[in-house]
């Protein structure tokens, strides 16, 4: 009964309607705005703003933490080496730091490098897809509980959802959906959206701590 072909008459009639033209062109306004906005090539709305505000300090903090860990291990190595002696007592901390091949600080540094190089694209992609699923599940589960977004939050959420939609369009256009960059962008956007919804969810849940579901 419901067959698109049977309605082609109406489709043809609608598609035959002439294209409309705005009474006044929008271009002069657009040109002025684009000229004014010197950053239009770089601006990436909410995500870009968040990246600038949070990602750089976060990277710096991670780098400092990395330097601290490496130098700490360098100092710790002689002590850990002693634990290999039979009969000596091994503390919990030492168990954590001693591994079969951490004979010198040089090998420690090499291991840090190897961890990064061992993270293959496939593993990265799988991790991003898992993270994307988790975030989506959380958003869907908390959707009914969270208080409705309003004002600027609502606009921002709509904007982010639009951007996620665009990423999805690009992902579906790729036959294998293997683009790590696109998945990374999707996860970033979902995290932005989660952060936005999170504050509302907290309010709706009477301030109960639900950080675990976000960080999982």
């Amino acid at each position, binding site marked *: 009964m419901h067959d698109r072909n049977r309605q082609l008459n109406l489709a043809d009639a609608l*598609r035959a309607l002439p294209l409309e033209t705005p009474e006044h062109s929008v271009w002069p306004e657009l040109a002025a705005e684009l000229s004014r906005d010197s950053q239009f090539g770089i601006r990436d709305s909410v995500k870009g703003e968040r990246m600038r505000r949070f990602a750089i300090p976060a990277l710096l903090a991670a780098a400092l933490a990395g330097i601290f860990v490496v130098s700490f291990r360098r100092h710790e190595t002689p002590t850990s080496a002693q634990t290999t002696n039979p009969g000596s007592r091994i503390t919990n901390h030492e168990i954590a730091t001693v591994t079969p091949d951490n004979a010198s600080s040089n090998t420690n540094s090499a291991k840090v490098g190897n961890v990064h190089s061992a993270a293959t694209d496939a593993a990265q992609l799988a991790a991003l897809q898992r993270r994307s699923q988790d975030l989506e599940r959380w958003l869907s589960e908390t959707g009914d509980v969270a208080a409705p977004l309003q004002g600027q939050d609502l606009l921002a959420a709509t904007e982010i959802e639009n951007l996620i939609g665009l990423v999805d369009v690009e992902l579906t256009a790729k036959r294998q959906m293997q683009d790590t960059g696109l998945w990374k962008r999707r996860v970033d956007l979902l995290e932005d959206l989660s952060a936005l919804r999170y504050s509302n969810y907290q309010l709706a849940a009477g301030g109960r701590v639900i950080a675990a579901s976000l960080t999982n």
Partner: protein
Amino acid sequence: MSVRTLQRTLVADTRDYFACDHSHARCIFTIVTASSFQIDVPQALLARACAGDLGAFEQIYRRFERPVYTLALRLLGEPEAARDALHDAMLKVFQRIGQFRGESPFWGWLRQIALNEALMRLRQHDRAETHDDLDAFVDEAPGPWVHADATTLERALGKLPAQTRSVLWLYHVEGYSHPEIAGMVGKTVSFSKSQVARGTQRLREILEPSVGPMSCMIATAN
């Protein structure tokens, strides 16, 4: 080619017309494409736009001004709202053109932005139209739109509720499937189907009275 793209291509194919001009030695085929957005944009032009060339932006704007405005006008029904949607959609296109990766057609990417802009406005102005889901009823008789001129049909379209008109347009003109439309407007598949059926029926009712008196006159004359 993804299943979705394939489906859309098949739908588009069934809608193509082939006109044959017998006054010439050979046939001239005129293909009417499924969407007015299907405009090829040269790679060189896109590259210039990505580099921030305002002239390239203007060329892209000129190519897509009418398709974007028409889509927005059909969905929103108000010229001023459609103009705002055109402005915001094109601004977003130019601000984010660096994100376009070239793995899908540029027109599809741009259409998605334009559609999102129009749908966002539609949601904001949604006057809580409530429609019960109906079984999709399709009248197989030829509709009065076959004989209606463009102005009459446009006027009749304008009388439909915004949501019904939008679903009808997205389904028939832009070639989206019911599940896709349901996802866009945040409703069920049966809602999308019922809106197409309702819209078709309502258009028939609006357009038929103009045909009615003529039928009576013919009957009287006979």
